[in-house]
């Protein structure tokens, strides 16, 4: 039994050793717990709270855009989406095959869906198809038992019920891209659309509204356990435009296939009641998402459907500019309304000879008839007398050469050249001949139809510096009052000379637009034609004889312009029309202007405001 005693002694010793070992290990555990739960507790409490909640932005419904009469131009349409939850679907391919029978899916779609499915958590829905028709949606719903995991969800998409009509003004919405500023948490929402062009972009913040938030408790894999808190945002504000969609429609139809632009504004308030650019595009395609081919077609089209030609089309103003030369000469005192110039059909300056558009010449003309016949020689003489700098100054006072600040992105400034400009930009001094070319609105000179319209408005309203704008302030529809406006600083008697000239253009036989006069009794229109060259006539062509405009390829033909105001007796509306490569202003642009102005005068959208205002006033007095 000696061995047993030894054995027991060894065992006892080792049991103590083992027990101490266990005590040490237990102390380690307790020490660790103390470290985690006492010393580091605050840090982990913070982490735990972060784990618990996720805050998601809630997209507010985007504000509507309506015309001056309240006709909806941009609205939010219900959009049905088909989504598949993989967790439920299990066999994605089989479900996609089944959906294909109702909503055809291309191989491209399938690839996208599979790719998305791989990157999502299995309980997160993957969008299979958007913008389902009612019928497709219904058929999918009916077949739902055979389509495990299929979810039909509703969303809002931007919809433009009038499609091409007013598309350039409305613009469009599209997904947020990387270069967009993203202070707004809404921008991070998948599928969130922001205004990318037109009023949608200018008034994006107002239309967007303020995003709400909803806080949810989530588990470790991001599955939502329950909604915790929901704060609705503010829906976007409604934007009311000064446009009259009836006129918009009329103008679009009247322009038809032509590539051109029309703008009509109230000469007192500057409210633009019509702004049409042709051809147009369907902004719905942008909310839906364009494919590569559609996009390519849009941007390579030579008639540039995406450009709003009223604000971004820059054209040589041609003879429509002659009013500026006349005013510059009158204001400078280098000519009077009675100053006569004899036109033999050309004008010699040094060795160079400048032609009038009329080969045989106009004979002797005073200023009014100079405007009426649009005699080039008369205005060569006037510009030679007054000089380019004073012409440029006058043009700027009437709104040319810089942006007018209308509420649209992409407005272009045009170009009014003068000596300093040429020195700075071309490092050459100004040539006397260039003054003559500028005097008939050619050469370097460029203006947008909006600028020409504004110019006419300022002539017609007696020299008030009215500026065009598109939106009607919701609180005060009559915010802009002519009395608040500064003047352009031109004597009214001088303006009157120009107005008489313009009256003659449209209403005296022999005027360049007499054929396109407005026939409404007492509502005559006063206008001015313009035909501007797109290309320079080469020396060779000069020798062989200039080809007729009709024989030239479309892109090289002259631009046809017409500007006008009406009614002549008490002016209210100014109009500018351009038909790109349409030929002469009198033949291509004036008839369009006449038809549209006639319609404007019939509907009298600006007068509507006053009628409402006076009715309200009477009501108030009564």
């Amino acid at each position: 039994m000696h061995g047993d005693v030894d054995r027991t002694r060894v065992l006892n010793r080792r049991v103590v050793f083992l027990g101490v070992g266990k005590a040490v290990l237990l102390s380690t555990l307790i020490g660790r717990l103390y470290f985690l739960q006492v010393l580091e507790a605050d840090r982990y409490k913070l982490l735990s709270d972060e784990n618990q909640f996720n805050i998601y932005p809630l997209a507010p419904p985007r504000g509507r855009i309506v015309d001056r009469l309240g006709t909806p131009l941009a609205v939010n349409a219900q959009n049905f989406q088909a989504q598949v939850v993989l967790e439920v679907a299990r066999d994605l391919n089989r479900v996609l095959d089944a959906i294909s029978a109702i909503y055809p899916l291309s191989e491209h779609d399938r690839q996208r869906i599979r790719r998305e499915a791989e990157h999502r958590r299995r309980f997160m829905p993957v969008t299979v198809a958007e913008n389902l028709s009612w019928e497709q949606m219904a058929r999918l719903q009916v077949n739902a038992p055979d389509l495990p995991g299929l979810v039909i969800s509703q969303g809002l998409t931007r919809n433009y019920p009038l499609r091409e009509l007013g598309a350039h003004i409305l613009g469009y919405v599209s997904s947020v891209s990387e270069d967009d500023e993203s202070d707004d948490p809404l921008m991070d929402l998948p599928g969130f659309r922001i205004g990318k062009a037109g009023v949608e972009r200018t008034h994006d913040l107002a239309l967007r509204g303020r995003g709400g938030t909803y806080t949810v408790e989530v588990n470790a894999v991001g599955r939502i356990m329950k909604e915790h808190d929901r704060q609705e945002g503010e829906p976007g504000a409604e934007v009311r435009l000064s446009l009259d969609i009836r006129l918009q429609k009329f103008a679009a139809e009247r322009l038809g296939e032509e590539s051109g632009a029309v703008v009509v504004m109230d000469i007192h308030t500057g409210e633009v009641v019509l702004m049409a650019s042709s051809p147009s595009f369907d902004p719905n395609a942008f909310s839906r998402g364009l494919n590569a081919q559609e996009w390519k077609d849009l941007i390579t089209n030579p008639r540039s459907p995406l450009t709003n030609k009223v604000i971004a089309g820059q054209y040589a103003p041609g003879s429509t500019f002659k009013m500026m030369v006349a005013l510059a000469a009158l204001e400078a005192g280098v000519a009077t309304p009675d100053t006569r110039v004899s036109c033999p059909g050309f004008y010699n300056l040094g060795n160079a000879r400048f032609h009038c558009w009329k080969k045989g010449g106009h004979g002797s003309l005073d200023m009014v008839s100079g405007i009426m016949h649009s005699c080039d020689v008369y205005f060569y003489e006037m510009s030679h007398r007054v000089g380019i700098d004073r012409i440029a100054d006058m043009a700027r006072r009437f709104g040319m050469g810089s942006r007018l600040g209308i509420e649209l992105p992409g407005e272009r400034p045009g170009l009014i050249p003068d000596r300093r400009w040429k020195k700075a930009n071309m490092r050459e001094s100004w040539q006397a001949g260039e003054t003559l070319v500028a005097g008939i609105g050619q050469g370097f000179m460029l203006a947008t139809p909006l600028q020409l319209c504004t110019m006419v408005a300022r002539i017609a309203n007696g020299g008030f510096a009215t500026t065009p704008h598109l939106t009607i302030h919701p609180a005060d529809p009559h915010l802009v009052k002519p009395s608040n406006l500064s003047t352009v600083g031109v004597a009214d008697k001088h303006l009157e000379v120009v107005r008489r000239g313009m009256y003659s253009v449209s209403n005296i036989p022999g005027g360049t637009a007499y054929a396109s006069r407005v026939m409404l009794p007492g509502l005559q229109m006063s206008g001015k034609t313009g035909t501007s060259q797109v290309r320079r006539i080469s020396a060779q062509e000069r020798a062989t004889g200039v080809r007729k405009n009709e024989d030239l390829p479309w892109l090289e033909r002259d631009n046809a312009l017409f500007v006008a105001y009406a009614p002549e007796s008490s002016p209210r509306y100014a109009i500018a029309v351009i038909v790109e490569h349409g030929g002469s202003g009198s033949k291509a642009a004036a008839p369009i202007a006449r038809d549209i102005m006639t319609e404007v005068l019939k509907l009298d959208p600006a007068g509507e405001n006053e009628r409402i205002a006076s009715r309200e006033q009477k009501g108030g007095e009564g």
Partner: protein
Amino acid sequence: MIEHDFAFTLNRGEVPLREKLKYVSWSFIILLCLVAGVGVIMLASAAGGHMEPWASRHLTRFGFSLVMLLVVALVDVRIWMKYAYLFYAVSLVLLVAVEVRGTIGMGAQRWIDLGLFQIQPSEMVKVSLVMSLARYFHGASLEEVAYPPYLLLPLLLVLVPVGLVMKQPDLGTAVMLLMSSGVVFFLAGVRLWKFAVILLSGMSAVPIAWKFLHDYQKKRVLTFLNPEQDPLGAGYHIMQSKIALGSGGVFGKGFGRGTQSYLNFLPEKQTDFIFTMLAEERGLIGCLTVIGLYALLVAFGYVIAMRCRNQFGRLLGLGVVTSFFLYVFINTAMVMGLIPVVGVPLPLISYGGTSMLTVMFGFGLLLSVDIHRDIQIGRRGSYEG
């Protein structure tokens, strides 16, 4: 008759069943009930305050296990000693059987379904290995233990099942088998330098064994050794577990308020990570209470083993208690991020039948040792007579 197989010097084994019941350590059983009660509460909290699906089943299983524990405790310890090798052989055969079935591809199920419980042969081996080693070393004098070839057989008893569970690979069980049998070797008086030799040769064998592993097995072992390689897997779980533990603070967030667990940031909150949930909801106080209960159980086990008068009982008791301690330590150290993630449950609190059965069977043996502590068993045990 069984008792004739043994030589007794003091008779206490022959007491009738009713007498035996008096010797059952009821305070130990009350301690067990307290721990299992904590388990029921925590499982109810894991289910959002409901007894279903875990708590009620846990309670039922504990009830059955308790009955089994009493039966095991009342059976004469000499019978356990007699059938130790047979029990070991059966569990090894089952282990091979499920392994073969798993490899042939009839499904990777590594347990035998008994309805309320599932028996995992690797769990059975945990008990039967300790029993067999206790029996083997029961008759071993220090001289015999010092003689190296004498250790070959028990070493084989250990390494065969260790190799089999390693192959699964279930490293948690392998480590527990190695450590609990190591403790029996140690207590039997095996010199420390021999442990060092075994350890070194084991380490040198690793590169050779590595060659025989499949790629997927290598990957699993590597992930086990370095969980940070897999930040969204095991490493993520440990991070979340630490957040839960730490955010519990001293007093905890309260019953059913453990956001980490409730929101499923915790993996397997009802099984391996239940201690984390306890820590989150009950704080440091709750943790210390539970660890204290476990420590009491272990201390109790030591007392029982040390007051036993036969070597088999002492070795068996200490082996069982150590095995239990390892469960507790590995699980809690794992959820606290002290050791890598291994699938070891928290005994009597985690949901799951297998470990409960093993632990309760072990404690049954411990109580049997206690009841029959005065029986003196001869050197040769059953070989005599």
